[in-house]
């Protein structure tokens, strides 16, 4: 392999392929490493131009020595006077360069050894003016040289842009000049130079280069190692962000870049840059505000105000509500609201404002923002309805608790504060109590926490004021050394429901001073504790130890005793993890529980992997109870047991009692699947009720299953072969599900779905079920149920595909709309539709909702097959039909041909067909009949009874 770096460049190549401009200022020790990284490049045709910014150490002498050692490849220059930045030396380097391409390198960084070869290859094959590669930040003083890729999503694959307009994020995020290779003639022709006399010169230079480049190629190759030194005494420019002067320069550079974009007509880029400014640049500085004094805050606001005015209002729509709110409050210098809002910016799930409801929407705050500007912009920014705060109970809220008083005397701290009370979630008459809790930050040490009662709690409307004192000298007993940091939280009990808060120090310098403590290990470990504010702004306490102890401890921790203790601790943790792991449990199931005798009349029920008490397993269970059979019932639950039957034994899914029950049961009854790895004993009968007929392809008809190797397919088949009985509601199920699961004919039980017995009964009944009253539905309104199928697109909130407020305004006087989303697709309804649109997603069982609904709106959900049994109008809102059918796994039949109701694609069409339910009843009567015949022929209303008759009749009491 070509590993000889000292080989001179090809003699015929008078012009080097690449010039690397290395700039240096007072960095004599690292300069040789940087230069060596260039000389060791796999591409040989590379020259180095070192430019010294008039260092006061030996940097220039080192540079000259390097040039003397490599006369053909290294040249050294020195500026006549120090420029104080990176711009002037780099500009000088551009002038001295001879290579076809130019790359910039700082004296404290290095190039990856293939960098020049890869940049050159890309430049030559695409003809790009500018090639950019991946930069990696290397934290050289971290324990394991932590590496963080710089905006890696821009560099996932090779791509060539004809213009920067194709990828605005490149200009907006990757503002470095150093991970790039520029065609030298391009720099000269377009007169591209770094600004001099101002920091952040990279931002402007890279923006200019991006905007001017005729073609840009991005390569996924790592080209540049940016060495980051965090513990350095003199922090580099980009780290000293608490200096207001720096910030002023940053804003100046922003202005210049904006001007450049405006001149070039790149308005779309300015928009993306605005979004990033709100989301990233501003946030960086805002987070520091609570720790800064008033003078700083005002200067900061003055510097940003004009700039914020230049930001397109539309950019506020592209960021999270809290980003927009903070920017808006900053622009108005509304400090009283801004500082709490910053708390939410830092602790994203915290609610730091009392909020208010107006005209059916939820707003962050008013203070003139809602109607002050005349164009409705403030109102739009302050609207936080979509965050769903109004739907949360107090125990699910993380409330801001601002520390307003801190005093210490004789070992006791006296604390006072105010807890935010959003939307009056804590009612005025509520019974309040509270306690302060101190706990060691290190999780493994939370053996003991220390609690102190909150002496007074006062409801003050938008806040709950509290006062407490804690005798830390006597009441807090840390171990010492290992538990140096103690966090504090305040638990507030509201009518017996507990919500937990953290104490936020809202002003700098509020909590200071030392308190005596007595560590348990030894008094030598520490004798004082002092308050501190965490990075997230919360009050905590730190043990202050003696310096000698510190040194002693360091020796112990890093020496043999520490290593021994640490490895012992890790081993113990590993053993514990192994004992509670899934593998161990599965072994326990097979090797211990399955050796116990099968217990007669033990039945384990499960619905949707334990998430619900619902569906056919529930219907069978209730029929068994109704008939008064003698048997032992076990219901499995995951999450919370609330809502499960009290007359059955409840076991948590995957717990040892669960596994034991399954191993010993005579019957398994579920509608989805028991854990795949559990083998069913031959003497256990598994009745698989399944949970719906299929429109979408299932099982071995799904691409995902087909792709599995033969061995994995056989494994999968074994889990399916556990089914002794599989419930069938029509021959369609036989052609689809039974075939897709490769079930044997003898397992098929053609009895219909037990869960649908209730629907068959409801078809005959004219009475409205009691559920209507429970949901507060007035007599004169008809009920529509919207039940879409699971969309499952990542973590994003499920957005209703129509405007609920418009729906409520149009139909609110005639219909109540129930919305049932998949449990993974969380929906937020605005307060404005209260009473007219109701979220019923948390109801365990969908069947009573179906029985209640006078009409169903769905897209592709299998509830259509069940609801059809009621012979009531159905509407198919298939707004993304082609995408769903062709881009997904495919369907068994064409819904457009066989739907027993109108299929609509747009919201307007939906409104049109919803105008009259009666019309739809008549128009689609024949289609519904056909649909039931095709998909529900065995649902006759006696499925549960048939199942019980066939399997459990001998359990009847004599």
């Amino acid at each position: 392999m070509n590993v000889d770096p000292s080989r001179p460049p090809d003699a015929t190549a008078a012009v080097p392929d690449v010039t690397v401009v290395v700039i240096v200022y007072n960095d004599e020790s690292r300069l040789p490493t940087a230069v060596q990284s260039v000389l060791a490049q796999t591409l040989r045709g590379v020259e180095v131009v070192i430019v010294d910014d008039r260092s006061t150490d030996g940097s220039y002498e080192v540079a000259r020595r390097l040039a003397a050692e490599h006369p053909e490849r290294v040249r050294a220059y020195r500026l006549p006077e120090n420029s104080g930045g990176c711009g002037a030396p780099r500009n000088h380097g551009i002038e001295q360069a001879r290579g076809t391409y130019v790359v910039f390198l700082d004296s404290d960084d290095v190039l990856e050894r293939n960098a020049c070869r890869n940049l050159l290859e890309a430049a030559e094959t695409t003809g790009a003016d500018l090639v950019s590669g991946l930069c990696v930040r290397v934290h050289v003083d971290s324990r394991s040289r932590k590496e963080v890729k710089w905006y890696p999503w821009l560099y996932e694959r090779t791509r060539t842009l004809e213009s920067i307009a194709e990828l605005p994020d490149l200009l907006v995020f990757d503002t470095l000049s150093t991970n790039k290779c520029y065609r030298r003639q391009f720099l000269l022709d377009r007169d591209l130079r770094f600004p001099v006399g101002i920091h952040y010169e990279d931002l402007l230079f890279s923006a200019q280069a991006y905007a001017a480049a005729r073609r840009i190629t991005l390569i996924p190759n790592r080209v540049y190692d940016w060495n980051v030194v965090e513990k350095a005494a003199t922090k580099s420019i980009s780290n000293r962000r608490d200096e207001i002067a720096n910030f002023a320069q940053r804003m100046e550079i922003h202005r210049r870049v904006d001007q450049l974009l405006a001149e070039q007509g790149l308005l779309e880029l300015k928009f993306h840059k605005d979004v990033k400014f709100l989301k990233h640049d501003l946030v960086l500085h805002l987070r520091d505000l609570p720790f800064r004094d008033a003078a700083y805050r005002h200067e900061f606001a003055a510097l940003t105000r004009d700039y914020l005015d230049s930001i397109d209002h539309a950019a506020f729509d592209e960021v999270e509500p809290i980003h927009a709110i903070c920017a808006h409050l900053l622009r108005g210098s509304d400090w009283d609201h801004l500082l709490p809002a910053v708390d939410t910016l830092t602790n994203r799930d915290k609610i730091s404002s009392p909020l208010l409801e107006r005209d059916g929407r939820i707003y962050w705050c008013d203070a003139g923002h809602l109607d002050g500007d005349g164009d409705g912009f403030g109102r739009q920014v302050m609207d936080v309805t979509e965050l769903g705060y109004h739907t949360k109970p107090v125990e699910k809220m993380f409330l801001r608790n601002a520390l307003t008083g801190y005093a210490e005397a004789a070992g006791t701290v006296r604390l006072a504060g105010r807890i935010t009370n959003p939307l009056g979630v804590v009612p005025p008459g509520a019974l309040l109590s509270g306690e302060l809790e101190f706990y060691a930050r290190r999780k493994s040490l939370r053996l003991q926490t220390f609690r102190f009662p909150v002496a007074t709690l006062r409801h003050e409307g938008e806040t709950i004021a509290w006062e407490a004192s804690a005798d830390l000298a006597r009441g807090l007993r840390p171990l010492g050394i290992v538990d140096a940091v103690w966090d504090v939280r305040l638990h507030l009990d509201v009518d017996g429901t507990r919500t937990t808060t953290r104490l936020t120090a809202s002003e700098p310098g509020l909590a200071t001073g030392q308190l005596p403590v007595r560590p348990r290990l030894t008094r030598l470990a520490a004798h004082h504790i002092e308050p501190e504010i965490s990075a997230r702004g919360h009050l905590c306490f730190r043990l202050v130890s003696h310096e000698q102890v510190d040194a002693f401890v360091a020796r112990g921790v890093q020496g043999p005793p520490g290593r021994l203790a640490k490895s012992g601790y890790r081993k113990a943790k590993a053993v514990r993890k192994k004992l509670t792991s899934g593998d161990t449990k599965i072994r326990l199931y097979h090797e211990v529980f399955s050796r116990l005798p099968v217990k007669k009349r033990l039945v384990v029920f499960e619905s949707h992997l334990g998430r619900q008490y619902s569906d056919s397993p529930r219907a069978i269970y209730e029929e068994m109870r109704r008939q008064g059979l003698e048997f032992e019932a076990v219901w499995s639950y995951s999450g919370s047991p609330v809502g499960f039957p009290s007359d059955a034994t409840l076991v948590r899914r995957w717990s040892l009692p669960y596994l034991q029950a399954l191993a010993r049961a005579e019957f398994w009854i579920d509608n989805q699947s028991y854990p795949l790895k559990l083998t069913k004993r031959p003497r256990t009968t598994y009745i698989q009720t399944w949970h719906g007929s299929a429109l979408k392809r299932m099982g071995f008809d799904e691409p995902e299953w087909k792709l599995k190797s033969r061995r994995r397919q056989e494994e999968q088949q074994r889990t399916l072969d556990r089914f002794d009985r599989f419930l069938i509601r029509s021959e369609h199920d036989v052609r689809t599900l039974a075939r897709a699961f490769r079930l044997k004919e003898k397992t098929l039980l053609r009895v219909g779905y037990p869960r649908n017995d209730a629907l068959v009964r409801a078809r005959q009944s004219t009475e409205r079920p009691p559920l209507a009253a429970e949901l507060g539905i007035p007599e004169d309104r008809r009920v529509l149920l919207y039940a879409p199928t699971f969309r499952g697109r990542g973590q994003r909130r499920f957005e209703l595909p129509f405007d609920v407020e418009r729906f409520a305004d149009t139909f609110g006087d005639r219909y109540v709309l129930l919305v049932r989303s998949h449990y993974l697709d969380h929906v937020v309804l605005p307060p404005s539709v209260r009473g007219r649109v109701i979220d019923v997603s948390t109801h365990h069982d969908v069947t009573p909702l179906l029985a209640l609904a006078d009409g169903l709106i769905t897209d592709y959900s299998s509830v259509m097959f069940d609801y059809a049994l009621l012979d009531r109008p159905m509407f198919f809102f298939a707004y993304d039909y082609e995408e769903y059918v062709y881009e997904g796994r495919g369907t068994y039949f064409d819904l457009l041909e066989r739907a027993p109701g109108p299929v609509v694609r747009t919201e307007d069409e939906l409104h049109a067909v919803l105008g009259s339910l009666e019309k739809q009843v008549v128009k689609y009567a024949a289609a519904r009949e056909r649909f039931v015949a095709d998909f529900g022929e065995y649902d006759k209303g006696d499925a549960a009874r048939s199942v019980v008759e066939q399997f459990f009749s001998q359990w009847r009491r004599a």
Partner: protein
Amino acid sequence: MSGYPERDVFFVSNSVNELGGVTSWSHQMARLFTGRGHRVHVVGIAPAEVEQELGELPYRTKTLHSGRPPRPGRARRASMREQAARLTALFRAARPGAVVIVTQVWAMEWVELADTRSLTVIGMSHESYAYSKAAGRFRRVLKHYRDVDRLLTLTREDADLWIGEGLNNASYMPNPLPFMPDVPSPRTANVVVSMGRLHDQKGIDMLLDTWSEVAPHHPGWTLRIYGSGEDEELLKKQCTALGLDNSVEWMGSTGAVASALRGGSVFVQSSRGEGFPLALMEAMATGLPCVAFDCAPGVREIVRDGEDGLLAALGNTGELARRLGTLMSDKELRDRMGAAARANIQRYGTDEVVRRWEELFAFLER
């Protein structure tokens, strides 16, 4: 005439004549380089287990080990060093500017022990990134190819994935077209052709599922499945169970690839994994529009979806069936795509690929 200097080019593979795609590829390239005036040596690490007939070779071949190398351990290491010394001697005899092309990562374990200081070493991975991972070669590629001058994959997309794993020396080079028939298929017979080993990887089971959705809508059409392999019996049973015996013909393996392809109007590939599939290139060269699962970067590189063939999401037999149906029911579309396929596949013509190789040799000397 070449404009590039004549060089010594060494191909180092697991064996000189093991039956398989890599062997066919290296001897095709070796003949092409020889034709350009380069001095070619083909070196195998060990004798082949299943041999491939190569015919008269216009260059020298050499096999290092006389039998299988010893099992991993001290004896293996000693014998590797011994054979690496023979490689070193071979390399030293080369003229300046010589190039070593290591076609398989196993062979690289020997080459890295030899002295290659004055040569350019190019490593190759003749399969997709995903397949390397699935086949357990992932770690070994990362380890043994880390310091070669260039690691060549089959496509840009595969190279980018290896770069993402830290192999900054990765780049790519497509395979050349194996042959170019003078006469394309007339595309008049109602025949869909499939060609490949009857093995899980080729997904013939999914092809049969697909065909069961297509055949009822296209009476008179036949699916001809060329190839043999260990799954033959299983697949024939599946075919019967699906009731497809009347429209599927099991052809066995064939030596007459070109004429087999000429007998069809559409080519179908249903593989679970591929590298840079020669079968698609051959079918396109014969003027057949291809319908295939988009299972690898090499497939979407060869077939331009919607222009000279049609692709379906991997494993989605419904989609593959629809794509097949589209071409089977539209003769004009078949002709348009078939003609485009034959024209477009020229970009992998042997002259073009050899030119790219010679450019690469020159680039790596800069």
